[in-house]
């Protein structure tokens, strides 16, 4: 795996990776979804003195507290239902190696406290154990696609933890801020996927390249990679024309940006909305990872966000509590989610989505105790 690009941003990033690899300091990698945070973590590990040790990865999003704690710190037999034997955590399984915590911004306050204590003592206490089990020599690299400073101000992330994790900070820029690298990346993945799928490497027509350069790439390199792979399979060796590109990429050079605050019906990026919804509903990714960063970076309009919420509410019958689950957020995020929607005026009235009126459920959406009539 290599870092592809000649932009200034990539050169700075490479210098930062070298710097990080030379020390044992904790590293925080920031960047939108799909920019390659795990690739950067791998680079740091492989160039560091820990290269011969393991690199283990945990994604903090979507795991309930107890499971995340068990993943990281392990548990002893009988500490909870299903804990049939002692199990070491990843921190213990990476002696002289690196543990990469992805989406660290999703950690609950309780897990933040547990991690804070570990950083202070370096000691592992397995769940259910009476006392600290062992000390470990492990390097922590963390990553987030959230702007953690904002979350600190909102009280959702501990500032002391932030400064402990953020000794060296690497910012990976979104692809749209380094468009000069797009041609190189397209070339690279053309070669890669042609070889992988054993098809002749197609030419990219100037018209298609124009579209690729103009697209905003909300999903960054991951999106570009997927687009290249799909189109290679589609054209089977012949030259790639603009019309061969997926609809949201084709037309990028022409489509005007939508004014942000029109109603639901005005959203003009249905394919993107559908794609984001599918990532949450089918691939189990979290709202905070899929929709939130795009919205905060203004790659998703209010109308788009409303459309996504509308899609979700249609299948939960207007129940926001269920919507939280549907979008793969921990239950504790319910209030945070609602506050977020209210703040940006994207909180749609649940009554619109009630299919069976008159069942006395008007309170249940805000209380969220009972799943509303599940007849959809």
């Amino acid at each position: 795996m290599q870092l592809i690009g000649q932009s200034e941003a990539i050169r700075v990033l490479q210098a930062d990776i070298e710097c990080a690899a030379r020390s044992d300091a904790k590293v925080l990698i920031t960047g939108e979804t799909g920019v390659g945070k795990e690739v950067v973590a791998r680079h740091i590990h492989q160039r560091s003195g820990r290269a011969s040790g393991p690199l283990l990865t945990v994604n903090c999003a979507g795991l309930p507290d107890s499971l995340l704690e068990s993943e990281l710190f392990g548990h002893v037999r009988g500490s909870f239902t299903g804990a049939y034997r002692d199990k070491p955590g990843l921190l213990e399984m990476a002696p002289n190696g690196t543990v990469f915590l992805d989406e660290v911004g999703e950690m609950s306050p309780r897990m933040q406290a547990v991690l804070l204590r570990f950083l202070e003592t370096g000691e592992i206490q397995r769940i259910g154990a009476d006392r600290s089990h062992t000390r470990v020599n492990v390097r922590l690299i963390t990553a987030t696609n959230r702007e953690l400073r904002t979350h600190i101000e909102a009280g959702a992330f501990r500032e002391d933890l932030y400064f402990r994790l953020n000794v060296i900070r690497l910012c990976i820029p979104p692809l749209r801020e380094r468009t000069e690298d797009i041609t190189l990346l397209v070339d690279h993945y053309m070669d890669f996927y042609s070889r992988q799928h054993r098809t002749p490497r197609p030419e990219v027509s100037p018209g298609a390249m124009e579209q690729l350069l103009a697209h905003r790439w909300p999903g960054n390199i991951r999106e570009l990679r997927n687009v290249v792979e799909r189109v290679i399979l589609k054209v089977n060796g012949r030259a790639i024309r603009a019309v061969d590109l997926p609809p949201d990429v084709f037309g990028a050079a022409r489509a005007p940006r939508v004014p942000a605050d029109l109603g639901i019906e005005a959203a003009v990026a249905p394919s993107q909305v559908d794609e984001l919804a599918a990532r949450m509903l089918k691939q189990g990714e979290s709202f905070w990872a899929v929709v939130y960063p795009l919205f905060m970076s203004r790659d998703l309009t209010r109308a788009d966000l409303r459309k996504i919420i509308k899609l979700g509410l249609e299948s939960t019958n207007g129940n926001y509590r269920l919507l939280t689950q549907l979008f793969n957020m921990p239950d504790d995020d319910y209030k945070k989610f609602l506050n977020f929607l209210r703040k940006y005026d994207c909180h749609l009235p649940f009554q619109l989505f009630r299919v069976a009126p008159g069942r006395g459920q008007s309170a249940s959406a805000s209380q969220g105790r009972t799943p509303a009539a599940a007849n959809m």
Partner: protein
Amino acid sequence: MTPTKAKRQVVVVDDDPDVLETLASVLKVWGYDAVPFNRFEDARTFLSESTADVLIVDVRLGKYNGLQLVHLARQSHPDMVVIAVSGYDDPVLRAAAADAGAAYFVKPIEFPNLRDHLSAA
């Protein structure tokens, strides 16, 4: 006490303008050539092009940790004397500073200690 030959250059980085100004003026009185910065990025650029002797850096610099500057500066200036300054006596950051080869001073800085540290280095 006062440096003898050419003035030693001290880069000072703090996002609190009052602290920055006070430190810089005290260093000047002591006979150092103080170069103040209030932004991580500016200090980084300067350090990559200069031959400063000393770096005094606040740990909390906006979204950055001042210790990152220490790690970056170490690459081009292995002999640089570095002092990390923090409003909090955080044991983890104190250890991280030591790993980076930096002394750790807790605010408010006691100037006699600072002067001794600089002249001993």
